[in-house]
């Protein structure tokens, strides 16, 4: 029905904040926050009509200041949180109704994870990246796996049970990697956005929770009907880069998967360009069938 061409949407201002509306599971909806010092900032609620390839937008005004980060409530569609900065009063964080069980800190060259209840350090990855660590994401199906990215252009995958060595290292970007995201349903799909203006979709089969090549009952997910049978005859896929998306012309500071459609993702570059892309059809069918 639809082709794989990307859908591009432009904002007037610079933007860094992007999130899917997590609680919404029917419509493909992204929230984008702008970052402008001179004008009133906005929150764009972007609905993507998959059937017709049409974008509908709603704009909310966010007059308090420039938005550095935005997050939607995982439970309630109507609630979202922004993290903003007002001139002359430094930065202020609002966590809203989001509740964390874990407090994760990102610091230069190291990743710490602390239990909130007792505040003791569980693990610490020293020297995770050569320079700053920009982002991290946990594998949704294998909780001891996490991906991190940073200024050394690398994406590293860690097993938190043994943090001396990264499990895997990707070095595909040519500048700092700002964002790394696991696909919620198919955790072999990893999305990264970098200030070299590229978005890269990688296929990390070897460390994903999905079995390849043999029949194993996946008891943890509801989308069992999606991959109803992993046939034995199917060849295991290799870890590789699936696609490099070069629609952006400025640094990409945010990428994320849609919460409604596991095959759809959005990326946002500093010049306000939002690009919605799909996982290549061939790969999608390969994973599903």
């Amino acid at each position, binding site marked *: 029905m639809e082709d794989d061409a990307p859908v591009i949407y432009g904002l007037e201002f*610079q933007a860094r904040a992007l999130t899917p509306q997590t609680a919404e599971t029917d419509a493909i909806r992204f929230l984008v926050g702008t970052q402008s*010092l*001179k004008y009133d900032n906005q929150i764009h609620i972007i609905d993507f009509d998959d059937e017709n390839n049409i974008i509908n937008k709603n704009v909310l005004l966010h007059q308090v200041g420039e938005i550095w980060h935005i997050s939607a409530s995982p439970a309630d569609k109507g609630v979202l949180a922004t993290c903003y*900065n007002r*001139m*002359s009063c430094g930065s202020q964080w609002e966590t809203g109704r989001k509740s964390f069980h874990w407090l994760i800190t990102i610091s230069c060259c190291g990743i710490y994870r602390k239990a909130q209840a007792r505040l003791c350090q569980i693990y610490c990855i020293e*020297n995770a990246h*050569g*320079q700053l660590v920009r982002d991290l994401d946990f594998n949704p199906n294998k909780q001891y796996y996490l991906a991190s990215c940073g200024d*050394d*252009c690398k994406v590293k995958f860690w097993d938190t049970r043994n943090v001396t060595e990264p499990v895997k290292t990707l070095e595909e970007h*040519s*500048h*700092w990697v700002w964002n790394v995201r696991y696909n919620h349903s198919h955790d072999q799909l990893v999305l990264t956005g970098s*200030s*070299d*203006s590229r978005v890269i979709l990688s296929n990390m089969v070897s460390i994903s929770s999905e079995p390849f090549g043999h029949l194993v009952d996946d008891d943890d997910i509801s989308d069992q009907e999606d991959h109803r049978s992993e046939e034995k005859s199917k060849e295991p896929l290799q870890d590789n880069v699936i696609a490099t998306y*070069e629609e952006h*012309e*400025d*640094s990409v500071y945010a990428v994320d998967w849609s919460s409604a459609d596991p095959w759809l993702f959005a990326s946002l570059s*500093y*010049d306000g360009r939002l690009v919605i892309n799909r996982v290549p059809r061939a790969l999608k069918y390969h994973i599903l069938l």
Partner: protein
Amino acid sequence: MAAAATAGSSPGSGPGDSPEGPEAEAPERRRKAHGMLKLYYGLSEGEAAGRPAGPDPLDPTDLNGAHFDPEVYLDKLRRECPLAQLMDSETDMVRQIRALDSDMQTLVYENYNKFISATDTIRKMKNDFRKMEDEMDRLATNMAVITDFSARISATLQDRHERITKLAGVHALLRKLQFLFELPSRLTKCVELGAYGQAVRYQGRAQAVLQQYQHLPSFRAIQDDCQVITARLAQQLRQRFREGGSGAPEQAECVELLLALGEPAEELCEEFLAHARGRLEEELRSLEAELGPSPPAPDVLEFTDHGGSGFVGGLCHVAAAYQELFAVQGPAGAEKLAAFARELGSRYFALVERRLAQEQGGGDNSLLVRALDRFHRRLRAPGALLAAAGLADAATEIVERVARERLGHHLQGLRAAFLGCLTDVRQALAAPRVAGKEGPGLAELLANVASSILSHIKASLAAVHLFTAKEVSFSNKPYFRGEFCSQGVREGLIVGFIRSMCQTAQSFCDSPGEKGGATPPALLLLLSRLCLDYETATISYILTLTDEQFLVQDQSPVTPVSTLCAEARETARRLLTHYVKVQGLVISQMLRKSVETRDWLSTLEPRNVGLLYEEGVRKAQSSDSSKRTFSVYSSSRQQGRYAPSYTPSAPMDTNLLSNIQKLFSERIDVFSPVEFNKVSVLTGIIKISLKTLLECVRLRTFGRFGLQQVQVDCHFLQLYLWRFVADEELVHLLLDEVVASAALRCPDPVPMEPSVVEVICERG
């Protein structure tokens, strides 16, 4: 008669024809005469000798032809010739006839004389024979008389002759008997004197007789005696044999005697081998003692000499004696000996290998090769004797193994040397900074490293080359002719080393200490250059050298030069890229710190260029100086105060401008691979730094003066950086973007007048 006529005719016609030959053409006549003769002998004998015959035997007009018809001839003459010629020919013919008549007369006369003399001779012979017959008759009668006499004499002597023969037989028997009777005492004497050989010979001689006549009591007694003595003799021989003190040849003699005494060969053979084993084991023990736990063992050459002369010599003797003594045993015996040799040989080899293993440490091959040579040479003799034991093969195998180990050792040595060089370079790079003065230049260090590595390689090649020297006995083994040269030396040693060098160099790129603190950047630069040099020249030089020295005959595939070159080039490229990254990182950190630590909102109006930028430029200049290593690309640019093409764009329009620029310009690949030249390296570093600056600026918020400060700084950078990069536009673009981003991040963007900016920068 016919025979006599023939004999007369040929000499007769010769002289008769030529002197008085009426015709002028003498040669033709002679030919005609020859032809006649031939004709005569070829045809029937009854033909008349004087009959003339022509060359054409069928021509009836030919005077000399066989079928001459006088009528036809006459007709022909009469018909064809004029009168004068007829007259001539008539006279001619008359003359010829007359000459022929006289010839004939002469012949007849001569032959008649001869016939008469022959008849006389025959008559005389007849008389002689008659006389001879009488004499023969007389001779026959005489002979008959002589025969008669002879027969009578024989008959008379017959009787006596028989008696004499009998007597002689008795005499011989008696002598034998005497020998037998004396045998026990003789044997005893022999045994006492130790002349075992003699004793055994006697015994051997008497044995059969005694065996035959043992039913006679007297003989029986003698036999018993003999057996006792023989038993004693055997006892003594065995004793001697067991004592083992005497050398192998005497033992062999003992065994020989015992065999002659009819001892069971099987048992003796076992015993013989057991004794030989004892002796050889002693040798082995002494060797082992030499090997010993104490370090000051004799050098390996001495060791193999001892082994060669002691053990291998002993083994040779044993084998030779065994084959001589027990040859009758056939294949089973040979098998036994082979097993024996195999077992002892393997122990010997184990010892030798232990000794050789101790030798692995040293760097000098000559002694080792000589020792191996002796070892191998010594073992060829028993190898020939005992082909079945496979000693020579095992020895060759050991030599090969040692050669392989040596190759491995040399490879290790080369690696160690390379690492040592690197350590030296590190120290050299670290030292001058401490001393505060200019140390040796990178080029010099590079030359040092390259030459020292090359000399190490050459030394290793020379050392390994000893293995293939002509005079070494194992150098013509197929392994040393083929695989050793191609797979061992070329692939294993040289290619292996170059590969490991590349790997070591590459490991600097992926070392976990990515902060750049682990490896001094200059070292990266130097290694990169080294690899590049290898790619361009050194690899092919070294390989050519190897191929020449080792005359690689093996046809097995070898790594081509181009592959190695490509590897080296790849390494050089990676090192250089890593260098750019590290250097870019250092400058990035400085920039980041300067951007992040400053309070851009409340900054004052810019008066000066940011201190850090000046430092940054200085740094860039210093890395420029170190980049002389790659001065392949000589900078033709003149040092100019201003970048000629730079027109600062108005900050307010930059948003649009940069967007347009972006549309038309290529994407800037920040961490892109670099070329092997100074400008490319510097461009790489600067690109990284400026991109960092851009990203940092975007994360800050600027006040008006903050923006102006950024403006000034960028202009300053503009002034200084253009001369380091290949593409000025790139720097402009990045700097413009920095200023534009800063303007965006400023709530009150009031840019500074470009003229003021320039003034400030010139002052800076």
